[in-house]
């Protein structure tokens, strides 16, 4: 006897998910994937040594190995999900399913859950392998205590991050663009928002260049009371201006303006690399913002210090543990796989397997590369995208601009979630981020795609599979 409607739906979802997972296992797709991932986790670190240090090897493991594995899984997820429905339609197994009391949405969702389950298993295995690899590397006798300490301090950690306040740079950028517009110097086909973004970026670059004899202050919100065991670090990346051979000299000062500094430390940095300065507890006041000043003590103009405008100096504090952070990163990656699976199932509901794979893969590539087509360098008079404005046909620019903008808007909500970068940076991935990522990548977008696909499947004549 059939059971109640709710439990019937659950049974159907579980049955379809189970079927999808089992087919992946029995068709040796799963074992092929595991082999490929194993090769990636084992062979890639052997081939890519980074800078030869333990730190470099750990970065390779986290960024390239884990990232590469996620990439491989992404490709296979797209392919498998495209095949999951399209193959059933082409080989007509779906005829035996849709004559049963299964709603197309139940069928779609069940397959999606099966693909998600497979990804969960593989991500877990990959994460465990990477973790084990790191631990094994740390346990080797040739690793020095200093290297271990650096790794524990900079990578195998999960610190909260505070970015410096923007100090009204955006407002200044708007004012600058308004001035340009008023003076008639802004190209007519350029949107104000794009010009403001460009101006903001330039302001940040200029602000992060500290000439000899100058100072630059960043203001941070207080981290509160970090606790007795938790240290506060200042992390920064800087380089000297080009062609300089003289050593740069500078001092970090921490303390409210107009008062004696609570903490002073000379600048010690590997140029181009990232550096960490530990701030004493006395320098951090729980209820007041933190002022961090860099003073360039150089005399020669060529020793201007340039801080990375994309990642200005930042405050790090606390440590929620690397293992938990790795798990959260894997969950975010799983969310992405869920979205890719939904995309593949949707195209597979419409097209044949290869065409669906091509379409889904193409869409993913376009979204990933959309930032490379963004309009840039628009504040130089009379140019757009590096071409002479007078010569470029307007319709080309219009198509370029509209498509880049539309795609950028569609991709932005998804692309803002990061997993590998914060993990390899030793930054804490909050559960809130994981939740938001899952809400968007695992519920909203797949829900929309699933509903669309269910309509498509319902409209399709599954008794007569077409050629496309």
């Amino acid at each position: 006897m059939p059971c109640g409607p709710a439990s019937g739906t659950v049974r159907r979802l579980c049955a379809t998910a189970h079927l999808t997972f089992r087919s992946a296992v029995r068709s040796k797709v799963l074992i092929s994937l595991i082999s490929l991932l194993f090769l990636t986790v084992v062979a890639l670190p052997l081939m890519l040594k980074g800078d030869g240090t333990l730190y470099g090897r750990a970065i390779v493991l986290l960024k390239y190995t884990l990232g590469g594995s996620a990439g491989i899984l992404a490709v296979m997820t797209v392919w498998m999900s495209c095949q999951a429905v399209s193959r059933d339609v082409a080989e007509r197994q779906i005829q035996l399913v849709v004559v049963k009391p299964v709603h197309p949405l139940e069928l779609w969702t069940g397959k999606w859950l099966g693909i998600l389950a497979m990804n969960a298993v593989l991500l877990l295995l990959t994460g465990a392998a990477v973790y084990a690899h790191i631990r094994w590397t740390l346990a080797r006798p040739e690793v020095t205590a200093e290297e271990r300490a650096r790794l524990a301090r900079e990578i195998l950690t999960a610190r909260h991050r505070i970015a410096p306040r923007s100090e009204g740079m955006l407002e200044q950028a708007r004012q600058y663009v308004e001035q340009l517009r008023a003076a008639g110097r802004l190209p007519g086909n350029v949107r104000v928002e794009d010009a403001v973004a460009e101006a903001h970026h330039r302001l940040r670059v200029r602000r992060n260049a500290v000439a000899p004899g100058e100072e630059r202050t960043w203001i941070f919100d207080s981290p509160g009371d970090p606790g007795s065991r938790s240290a506060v670090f200042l992390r920064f990346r800087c380089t000297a201006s080009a062609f300089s051979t003289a050593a740069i000299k500078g001092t970090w000062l921490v303390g409210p303006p107009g008062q004696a500094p609570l903490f002073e430390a000379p600048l010690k940095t590997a140029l181009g690399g990232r550096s960490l300065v530990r701030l004493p507890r006395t320098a951090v006041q729980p209820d007041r913002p933190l002022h961090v000043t860099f003073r360039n003590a150089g005399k020669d103009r060529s020793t201007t210090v340039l801080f990375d405008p994309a990642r200005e100096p930042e405050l790090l504090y606390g440590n929620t543990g690397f293992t938990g952070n790795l798990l959260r990163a894997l969950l975010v990656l799983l969310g992405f796989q869920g979205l890719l699976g939904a995309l593949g199932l949707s195209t597979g509901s419409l097209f044949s397997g290869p065409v669906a794979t091509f379409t889904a893969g193409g869409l993913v590539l376009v979204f990933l590369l959309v930032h490379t087509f963004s309009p840039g360098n628009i504040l130089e008079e009379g140019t757009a995208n590096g071409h002479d404005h007078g010569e470029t046909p307007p319709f080309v620019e219009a198509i370029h601009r509209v498509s880049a903008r539309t795609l950028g808007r569609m991709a932005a909500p998804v692309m803002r979630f990061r997993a590998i970068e914060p993990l390899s940076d030793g930054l804490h991935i909050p559960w809130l981020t994981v939740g938001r990522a899952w809400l968007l990548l695992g519920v909203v977008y797949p829900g929309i795609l699933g509903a669309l696909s269910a309509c498509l499947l319902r409209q399709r004549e599954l008794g007569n599979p077409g050629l496309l």
Partner: protein
Amino acid sequence: MLQDGRSGDRVMARLGTASRQFWTLAVLTMLEAVRQPLFLLLTASALVLTSLTPVLAMHRFGEEGKLVRDSGLAFQFVFGLFIAGYAASTALSQEMRRGTLLTVLSKPVGRTTLFLAKFAGVAASVTAFSACAILTTLLSERVAERFMTGEHLFGHITDWWTAVRLLAVPVVAFALAGVHHYRRKGPFTSWALLILLAGLVVVLLGSGFFDRGGRWAPYDMAVQWRIVPAGILVTVALIVLAAIAVSLSTRLTTVPTVTISALFFAVGLAAESFRGAAEQPAACLAGLVRRIVPNWQHFWVCDALDNGGVIPAAYLADTAFYGAVLCAGILFLGVLSFRSVDLK
């Protein structure tokens, strides 16, 4: 003598039959490959991406089309890899699974002839794709921005008119193939491909009548013909990849075939980095890899075209010979595999 004559006649007759069978099977394989929707999609995508490169990418002063050249050849390589892998799988492993191969082998066709004909058909389809890709790269390179110092043209000039004509080719090809399909019910994909190829030739020949500003000018195609040998080398590499894919298809399905072919591709590109491995086990492994995996760097010589460089005919011949030897070895293994596989 009479007996010798008769046995000689029999040998010639058999050769004639085998060559007719080979030709028939190869043509059929090629038709099957180019009629797949995915073939047309990949070809059109490579064409469109190559055509868009000079339009969308930023150029540095002094590049003179290098980015477009390198991108076009890279698209040819990567898309060609997927075309080769998919065509090989359709030609062999899917037919083995569906049982159509059994129908063919029930006729007096030898397995070796069948296997080699399949390879020839796949190689021919890859060559057709490469022809489209090379023509597109030639035209895209002409489109790319140049610094001109002429009477009518001065400054950084992009040949927008050729770009528009080039981008119109796939649109027109699809439209005409659609009309043909509507009126005559002809196969859409193969006609679209044919019109695509013809359209590219027409645009190439026609571009000679216009200068970069779109004005009538004395006939000058103004394309860099030295790109063609580089494209031919990539085509040879794709044919070698096709041989690998066809041989793998005797035992594996589509995804493992394409994946392993891609692995061969990736490892072959990095083959040079295996030279000089210091530790003993790694040195043995690296040496083995270098000997087994084709070194694709021999076929990828885009840098030789910088600053007006040309690829010498001798190098082209040597590398083509290297490719032929590789194909022979790979196909030999493929034949052995195919002869021993059970067809159910």
